[in-house]
């Protein structure tokens, strides 16, 4: 319980060290951004939407290992999905991150995020890129933020 390796699983450390799809996507037709004003994490998601399908998705940004790994895993898991599929996956992952309950082993690498729920201060790090990706896919212009923004 609350063991550090619950949070920093090998998968996470690996994705943090070598984030996948960490680049601007020149063919992107949707962009979503997100930030955590309390700690300064920022992420931008680039999506190439082909009709209903996420043809490609990449990200850039700065943040902790959890947020980088979560974004990296997000790109791998949403690429090639239709919007409804992506929504379903994102919903399951957000539930997983906040509850820790792994539904079944349909999540392969994503279950590495299950340990985050034991670290309440880090949950927002893990969820940020998923919210930003949903925003991109939905064409929501406002940045996702862990606190919602106004000005």
């Amino acid at each position: 319980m609350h063991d550090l390796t619950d949070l920093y699983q090998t998968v996470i450390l690996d994705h943090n060290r070598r984030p996948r799809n960490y680049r601007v996507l020149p063919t992107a037709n949707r962009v979503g951004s997100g930030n955590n004003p309390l700690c300064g994490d920022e992420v931008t998601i680039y999506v190439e939407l082909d009709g209903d399908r996420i043809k490609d998705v990449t990200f850039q940004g700065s943040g902790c290992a959890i947020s980088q790994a979560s974004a990296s895993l997000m790109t791998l898991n949403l690429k090639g999905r239709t919007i409804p599929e992506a929504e379903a996956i994102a919903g399951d992952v957000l539930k997983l991150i906040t509850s820790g309950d792994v539904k079944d082993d349909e999540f392969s690498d994503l279950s590495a995020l299950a340990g985050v729920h034991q670290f309440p201060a880090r949950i927002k790090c893990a969820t940020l890129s998923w919210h930003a990706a949903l925003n991109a896919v939905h064409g929501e212009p406002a940045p996702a933020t862990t606190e919602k923004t106004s000005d």
Partner: protein
Amino acid sequence: MNASWKNLRADFPILDQRINGQPLVYLDNAATTQKPRCVIDALVRYYERDNANVHRGIHTLSIRATAAYEAARERSAKFLNAGSPAEIVFTAGTTDSINLVAHAWGDENLKKGDVILLTEMEHHSNMVPWQLLARRTGAKLRYLPIVPGDTGLLDLDQLSSVLTPEVKIFAFTHVSNTLGVINPAADLCAAAKKVGALTVIDAAQSAGHLPLDTRAIGCDFLAVSGHKMCGPTGVGVLYGRAPLLDNMPPYRGGGSMISSVEYFESKWAPAPAKFEAGTPNIADVIGLATAMDYLDGLGREAIARHDEKLAAHAYARMATEVPGIRMLGPAQHRSGVISFALPGAHAHDVVTLADRDGIALRGGHHCNQPLMRKLGLPSTARASFYLYNTEAEIERLIASLQKIQKFFAE
């Protein structure tokens, strides 16, 4: 929380003392209430175990402090039956809450020709912020009068003639701190809604004294002081309906209320964070939530019944057993606040003499100068009852008042 009406006085350490040789009879509850041991313990526990700054922290103490602070927000939302915790802003007290609305909502939304409606019984804290706002914006003040005489009830017959479409905001007290009058808050809010006016309720004297349901009342804003409801000093609540808070600019600028800051401009966090600049009063917010638990353990219906019963009893006894006394406020259907004047004895002398008998009263204008002038009184003495007061204490009050009267008559 296992608050119980039996042995309730033992929950309040301060009551167990002698003043000028007599057991303390604390009847100054409208000024501030005493604190049960559980509230004091919550402060001690926080400082001895969990103290850390909130929100921005990732270490264990900060996580604990943040969790307790945000749990207090949820507790407050439940206490006031707000729509969500995001409708709860922690402030320094009722005065601070009202100033927040007057600045953040008022400066943005009022202009020349608009009217701010108040009532003649408002506390200075629900009058001066609006006077200042009127000065800044050119809006005008208007007052709903009280009926002639000493009951101090609002003259509801005049409501429709003062609550006109120029009224943009109607701020009124739920319970008068001088008269003990309980105003028909839901009716006033419904009437305001009809002309499109927002409502601000000063609940300083009602939160912790009566059941208080913001959604049933239908108000837009509601202001509360922790120290008047068994909580610590220095903390209060502003309830505001979410769409209003979301669209208001901030009041104070600083840490924690921002989404992003650059050297020349900033973006704000969403409410309620937008209105909580700087390190909040963490310990006292947690203490306030404990006070809410304590009060709900006893039941706010039961507290209101207890206060009203004591007040009606005291009112009746005083009116008959202290010849010549002038009683203010209604005889019944009232809160636990009773103001009175003794002929020939100034309020300050009454309070000093009662204090010799161990009885804590208040004397003066009670931050109600205009109301006192209207009633033709420079000051009154005030006895205000709360959950720990007893009928035996009323007997001591009556005896003391009779003695005082004799002292000045001699």
